């Protein structure tokens, strides 16, 4: 059976995992199962940058995948790829694993008072975004669509925690294919 899995890499609160699970179930219309937490890969921490290598995290998620579905993983760590200063998340385009970092989604990261509602909205948006990539969707030119590229928190806040009509159609097509493949 084609499934979606939600997992934590390292320590992630139950509430945030539940939020991600609910959001995935709602938008991808597939059975969703929670996986046991995945251990943070040793050596992923870059001391000079004080950040974690996104590729190492993503590979850890791939290794933990049960093999009959896609995994959307959450981490509290601030992740990076060597070329860029930071990432909100990373996914294998049309692959098995998607990863969302909650580190930069909190208001506190930017020196502002905590705002749970804002955080939840951002987390949902990024879960949809990276999950969409795992289903092969590319960035959407519609700035309000969850699939549009956000390279700053301001751009992320312009997005809605939902797909635009075009991306929704494309996603439905991919989900049909995904189900077909697994039968």
């Amino acid at each position, binding site marked *: 059976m084609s499934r979606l899995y939600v997992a934590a890499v390292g320590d992630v609160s139950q509430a945030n995992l539940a939020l991600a699970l609910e959001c995935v179930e709602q938008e991808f219309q597939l059975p969703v199962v929670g996986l046991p937490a995945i251990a943070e890969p040793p050596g992923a921490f870059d001391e000079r940058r004080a950040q974690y290598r*996104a*590729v190492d995290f993503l590979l850890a998620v791939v290794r933990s995948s049960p093999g009959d579905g896609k995994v959307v993983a959450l981490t509290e760590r601030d992740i990076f790829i*060597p*070329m860029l200063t930071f990432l909100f998340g990373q996914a294998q385009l049309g692959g098995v694993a998607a990863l969302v970092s909650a580190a930069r989604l909190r208001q506190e990261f930017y020196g502002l008072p905590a705002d749970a509602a804002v955080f939840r909205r951002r987390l949902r948006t990024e879960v949809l975004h990276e999950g969409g990539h795992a289903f092969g969707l*590319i*960035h959407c030119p519609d700035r309000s669509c969850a699939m549009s*590229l956000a390279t700053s928190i301001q751009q992320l806040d312009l997005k809605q925690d939902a797909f635009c009509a075009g991306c929704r159609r494309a996603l439905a097509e991919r989900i049909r294919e995904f189900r077909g493949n697994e039968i």
Partner: protein
Amino acid sequence: MKTLWNILVVDDEEAMCESMAAWLREDGYKVDTAFSGRQAVELAREKSYAICFMDLKMPGGMDGIETMMELRRLNPDTAVIIITAYATVDTAIAAMKEGAQEYMVKPCNPEEISLLVERIIKVKRLQRENELLRKRLLRQYEFRDIITKNARMQDILALTKEIASLRSTVLIRGESGTGKELIARAIHFSGDRASRPFVSVSCAALAETLLESELFGYEKGAFTGAAAQTKGKFELANGGTLFLDEIGDISPKLQGDLLRVLQERRFYRVGGSEEVPVDVRVVAATHRDLREAVRQGHFREDLYYRLNVIEIFLPPLRERREDIPLLTEHLIERIGNEVGKDITGVTDGAMRILMDHHWPGNVRELENAIERAIVTCRGSILTEDDFAFLAESVRARSQWVLPPNMTLQELEKQAIVATLDRTQGNIKEAAAVLGIDRSTLYEKIKKYEIPR
């Protein structure tokens, strides 16, 4: 449409390469990776990349700058973005000097990279669009638009291709309406000068002094009304081609001036004391027999030989009747599209009329006849009735009685006066009715001193 663009990421660190490629793929680009300069060059031989992200320091013989130079040699349009972990002013300068579009220090802000890629792609899209439009424009003057299966015309086209990239002056002779300007444009647009201007001047349309300032430009204050320095056609055509139509009509003074420019490739603006150098290929055209004009002393012999380095004689349409069906088909398609009518062809009877007509105004007259038939026709096929005006004009000619003691010139003058009268002085219309081009009509108005 993003998938049209290929991006190459070059870095000896595999993790750096692959993570960057994955990030760009999420944006819809087609991304390849190379872990050494050599591998990058191999890939670039097979495929052209819009953008290349290149690490500056790579082991194994070829560093980023060397690789970039090789990539740009293979495809000069590739925008190279040099990436380095250790920025120094020297390497940045060296990279930019060798043609890098940007120089960035890693790690880069994702927003910065995203904007940079967007900006480069936007420029590339505009360049591609420009190229397409340019090709479409050039196609109008390409050889394939000169429709012919006539052996003489085929020879002319072959010659035209051969001489397109030379600098030699060309003299095109032929009756009005045979396509002299079309050949001149074909020479220009199929040679090395195609990207430079093609400037056309009708020497018959202007009075001597006007033509002089038109050709050579003038300095401020050279004459009343010369409010600012103005470039002439020679300067406007610099690097390109100047087409001088009806060259047989220019005055002896201008003949001298023209000879000087052709010989020395420099001239003075009217009222100017400073020589202006110019690189222009001159293509001249005339319907006159210039050799005869030289013999009669109306045209300078030295100028004639200077112009007549390559001579092209265009046959009249009546001597290439086999082209009439082809031309008709082409013109119907073109004019039908222009006027928004879907005409599929002509009946056999209509084609007989077209084949039998004398066509004194040559291809231009055929074009006008087809346009008139398309505008007035009711069906989707042009019939004999649609070309009845041609038969009528022939009949009218045969029934018409020539007044006694009338010279050919008087006859021509009367025809022009009557036509101008009928068109209320509209030169374009009168020229179309008379089956001659505008410059020929201007020249005849001047010659017969017809008041306008």
